[in-house]
């Protein structure tokens, strides 16, 4: 980061200058400072360009990360769906076994819904670049209007600027226009403004060239002011665009983090479902020996085993209602 430059400090203390006179100002020092700032600006421009590219890279990376995470979540969601379908088979088997022993038919809740999340669409670097281009074109439009207006004011209404020429202008002879009068003053003023040849009836290539040279300080002032406005607009829009980009990246990252949470949660439910399904499958296999038995004739231990199996089946069933 370049050092801060204080224009007031650079220009020197006004009182000192007044005491010593303007001639005491070190012009070379000012030139040196200007070129020093210029170098800093070039460095800042490079730095800014690099960081703007970095921001675009971050935007693209974050969108890719979101898409990858979404794909991972979809895979986990599909996997959970498959595991839950398999678990339903085990629950059905247990239902049949319990039904063969119990006096009345029994059932377990085995409804579940597929976990779905809508994929969000984010504004990519390309969309931001397009917006930046539109904003830049607006700035160019303003600059265009400035150069046109600058010349137009001078070509069509030179009298509007005459007071400036007559107040500050100097005729080609070196005489201040303010000291001239009548036609000589008008002629000198129009010549100073640059549009003289045109309104004085000259026209032709000379007038065109004079117009294209922006016809004088007034025209230049208008063009300069519009250039300044265009630069301010360009800069402001780019800042806003980058702030918007920042918010978009923030939103993508937060959504990616939310997706990660969802994916990990599904992954955990999946792991629990697999464990419970496998264990219940084993328990069912062990209890199959009691298929069609009279409950009253069963031992205390078998009855407790059946009770545990019913509770475990309810547990697996309860896992179906676990959502994210």
């Amino acid at each position, binding site marked *: 980061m370049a050092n801060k430059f204080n224009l007031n400090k650079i220009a020197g203390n006004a009182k000192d200058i007044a005491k010593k006179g303007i*001639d005491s*100002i070190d*012009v070379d020092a000012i030139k040196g400072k200007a*070129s020093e*700032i*210029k170098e*800093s*600006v070039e460095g800042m*421009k490079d730095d800014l360009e690099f*960081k703007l590219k970095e*921001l675009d890279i971050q935007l693209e990376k974050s969108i890719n990360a979101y898409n990858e995470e979404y794909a991972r979540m979809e895979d986990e969601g599909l996997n959970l769906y498959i595991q839950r379908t398999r678990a339903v088979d085990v629950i059905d088997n247990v239902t049949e076994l319990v039904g063969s*022993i119990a*006096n*009345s038919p029994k059932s377990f809740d085995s409804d579940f819904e597929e976990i779905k999340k809508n994929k969000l669409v984010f504004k990519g670097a390309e969309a931001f670049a397009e917006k930046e281009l539109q904003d*830049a074109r*607006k700035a160019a*439009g303003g*600059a*265009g209007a400035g150069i046109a207006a600058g*010349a*137009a*004011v001078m070509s069509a*209404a030179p009298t509007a600027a005459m007071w400036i020429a007559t107040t*500050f202008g*100097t005729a080609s002879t070196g005489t201040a226009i303010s000291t001239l009068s009548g036609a000589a003053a008008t002629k000198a003023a129009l010549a100073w403004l640059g549009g003289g040849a045109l309104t004085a009836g000259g*026209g032709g*290539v000379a007038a065109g060239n004079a*117009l294209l040279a*922006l016809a004088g300080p007034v025209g*230049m002032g208008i*063009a300069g002011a519009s*250039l300044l406005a265009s*630069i301010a607009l360009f*800069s402001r829009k780019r*800042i806003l665009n*980058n*702030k918007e*980009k*920042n918010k978009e990246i923030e939103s993508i990252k937060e959504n990616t983090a939310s997706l990660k949470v969802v994916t*990990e949660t599904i992954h*955990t439910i999946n*792991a*629990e479902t697999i*464990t*419970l399904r496998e264990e219940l499958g084993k328990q069912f296999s062990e209890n199959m020996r009691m298929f069609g038995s009279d*409950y*009253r004739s069963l031992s205390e231990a078998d*009855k*407790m*085993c*059946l*009770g*545990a199996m019913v*509770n*475990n089946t*309810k*547990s697996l*069933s*309860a896992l179906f*209602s676990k959502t994210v």
Partner: protein
Amino acid sequence: MEGNNKAQINLREMLQMCRSILNDLNSNTLFAVMREQNINFGNALNLIEKYLPAAENMLDQDKTDLGIKTATIFLISLWSRIKQGSSISEFTKEDWNTVIGNAAEKAVAIDPREYSSMVFDLYRRSISYAIDPMRENAAATVINRLEEIVSLMKEYAEKLEMGDMPEVKFIEENLWLSLEALFLVMTDRMSHTLLPEKRRELAEAVSALIFQKLRYSHYEEELAVIDEIMEHQAELDQRLTKQVNAYINTLKEELDVFDVLVERAFSTKDFQDAFRGSIDLAESLGAEDILLTENDVDNYFLS
């Protein structure tokens, strides 16, 4: 279709606005000159209106852009005529109508990139024309820099044309170069008018300093914003990573507890403990109608 209607309304509103502005205009401007010469503004606007269908197709272009473009191209068309030797005072109604009509047509039809190129070509030509009258009195450094600016602007225009420079960069560079050139030319003109010779160098130096300071302030602000954004993103990354990791750890802990409960609920060593384990597991998962006692089990199977 809705968009089309909207664009149509906007453009018609714009024309309406132009009409009211023109009615109010009474200053010493180009329009006033036209008014003095009995130019029928109504007819001129009707002519612009003729090009509305084409304008309506350009839905991405708002009315301000189109208005600015039309005005700019109108004035440029006017220059061209003047450059060819015409004088505004000799313009006929037909001349005005042609200039206005062409401007409206071109503003709608011109490619935006071509427009950007045209604008800065005008600046480049203006700067170029401004150099010659300055040669005698201006400092060599000023002339050299102006020539350098003209050359750079030409180079950028060629690069843009060849597709070697993005348009945004082209506009940004040209805005600054044009402004710098105007600073230099204006300083030269003003200092010749207002200052004795020995002070001109000082004026040029101060002008250069102000210009560079202006650029510095602009880039400083942009850089500060981008630095803040980068810092914010780094903080966000850290915060989100921390949050997600904390959540994953919680899930891991929950899974550990689950595994212990499962191990007990499916234990084959002690049927009574396994039964109690199955209750704990079912409760932890929020199951309903859990069999809590031996009686519950009996009732379940015998009812």
